[in-house]
């Protein structure tokens, strides 16, 4: 049996294959346990991805507008305190007496800051403090605590009804009837 390669399985897990490839891959998966397990693992990873990139709900456009407004305000304030009109002569960075050069440097730095800021806002990455902090949360099939690169999760796979409880001291519990034992079970993960 010829197996699809890992990239194809990964794209299938992400529902990103075209219709024909999706159909042929689905047909293969129907008969191949190993590939089904591989797709299940990619599914798990896909579930983790949004959480890794999770960000608070922040109005980026408003923040960008505020930064622009602050930059304009700074430039206007600089204009107010400027002693007299001095025509810009010479090169962009080196003017007569160095004044024009200084202004140009500030303007250039401001533009760099603005562009850099906009790039960050457009393609944000997780706030370092929030991601580095210890946390505990519910997932699709369990609860997991995370500190840095280490994680501990207690899973409740196959459970029909799960009741989650948060302890404000830094714990999360999941209560369910274990399908394997038939006993009510309470898993708790504590943040350290």
């Amino acid at each position, binding site marked *: 049996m010829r197996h699809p390669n890992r990239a194809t399985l990964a794209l299938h897990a992400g529902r990103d294959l075209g219709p024909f490839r999706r159909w042929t891959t689905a047909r293969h998966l129907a008969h191949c346990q190993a590939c089904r397990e591989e797709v299940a693992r990619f599914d798990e990873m896909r579930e983790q991805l949004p959480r890794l990139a999770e960000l608070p709900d922040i109005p980026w456009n408003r923040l960008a507008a505020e930064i622009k407004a602050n930059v304009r305000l700074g430039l206007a304030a600089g204009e107010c305190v400027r002693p007299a009109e001095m025509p810009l002569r010479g090169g962009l960075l080196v003017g007569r007496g160095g004044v024009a050069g200084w202004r140009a440097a500030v303007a250039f730095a401001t533009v760099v800051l603005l562009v850099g800021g906009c790039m960050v806002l457009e393609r944000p990455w997780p706030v370092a403090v929030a991601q580095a902090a210890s946390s505990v949360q519910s997932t699709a099939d369990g609860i997991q605590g995370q500190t840095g690169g280490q994680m501990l999760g*207690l899973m409740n796979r196959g459970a029909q009804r799960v009741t989650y409880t948060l302890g404000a001291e830094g714990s999360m519990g999941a209560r369910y009837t274990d399908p394997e034992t038939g006993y009510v079970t309470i898993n708790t993960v*504590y943040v350290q």
Partner: protein
Amino acid sequence: MYSKTKNRVAILALAGAAAVLAQDAPLANNSVNINLPADSPVALLGISTGSSRATARGPALLLDLNLSLTLRNISANRIHGVTLRVVSQEVALGGVGSVFQPGLNIGPGEAFPVHISTKLMRPAQMAGGPLVQVNLDGVLFQDLSFYGPDQLHSRRIMTASEMEAQRDRAAFKRLLAQGGNPALKDAIVKILVRQDSIPQLEGRIVRGHTVTNAALAAATPARQEQFALVEFPDSPIQLMKGSAVVSGNEARSPAIEVRNRSNKAVKYVELGWVLTDPAGRAYMAGSLPSTGAFSLPAGGATEVRQENTLSFSANGQPFSIQRVSGFVNQVEFADGQVWVPNRRNIDDSPLLQQVLPPSVEEERLANLYVNKGIAALVEELKKY
């Protein structure tokens, strides 16, 4: 579009990395260490790691452990609860877990199963030794006596659970005596309906505060929200006032002033809190426990406070917190006795009726009814 592309790239990257780095391997026998003390009231009869596997992913080791244990009660008492402590390594970060099996009724010499499904990720280069350690944290007996190191406060947790179980079994027995099988059946059906109708919140807790720069703080303005207090007349703890800092779907630094109106010193207080959205729908959010060396003398007052940040979502969407309510959920006295709300406390509060899920014992007995019928349920109640 960007999100889809990002996901596609990430998945392809993961696929590539997995192809190069992933080394799936079954767990060796010494990967899991089950520690039961020499004088433990339970003995390990059997262990199966089933489909457990360890996978190296770059510098990290991802462990998927599916552990089935069979324990035997080797004490002279009936066991009503067991808690096992699950850690990756004693020194490892990333959290500690516990698996608590309440509602047991295991006689001397009888065996019972415990199932632990855990997922771990840790640096692959971490020093040797077992990947997972499972330690006995506590065993609760029928007479409420306790055995175990109690590192996770299992004694209090299991005792409170047993008190609730006794309370609920007594209520079922009263119903049975007054209205026979039909009354008992009605009560169980109501529990099943409540089980399905209680709205659920998903949550996340981050140690300390998540927002550290002024721009982000300004983007989600916070407000001090006062707790609406639900009072129980017979509660040993009176709630005075309380508040939490609320910002969008986040609540942080919840704090409630409490007064001990009993004549005994209290060493632990746990408050339940309920969140309401702008549409007036209420959800059970969790608990606000006292921590550390808490001690409240008879007649004394103090504040129960936590500094963590809790964020909530419902049905995958951020939950907008409109109102916060609090009630006393559990009290442990200095002498080890535990108080839990009685049935009337819960039945008389429309808010709690709306948000509290069935108790552990209600869930257990409802399962029994669903799987084995009313006769088995009646027999079960007779055992206590």
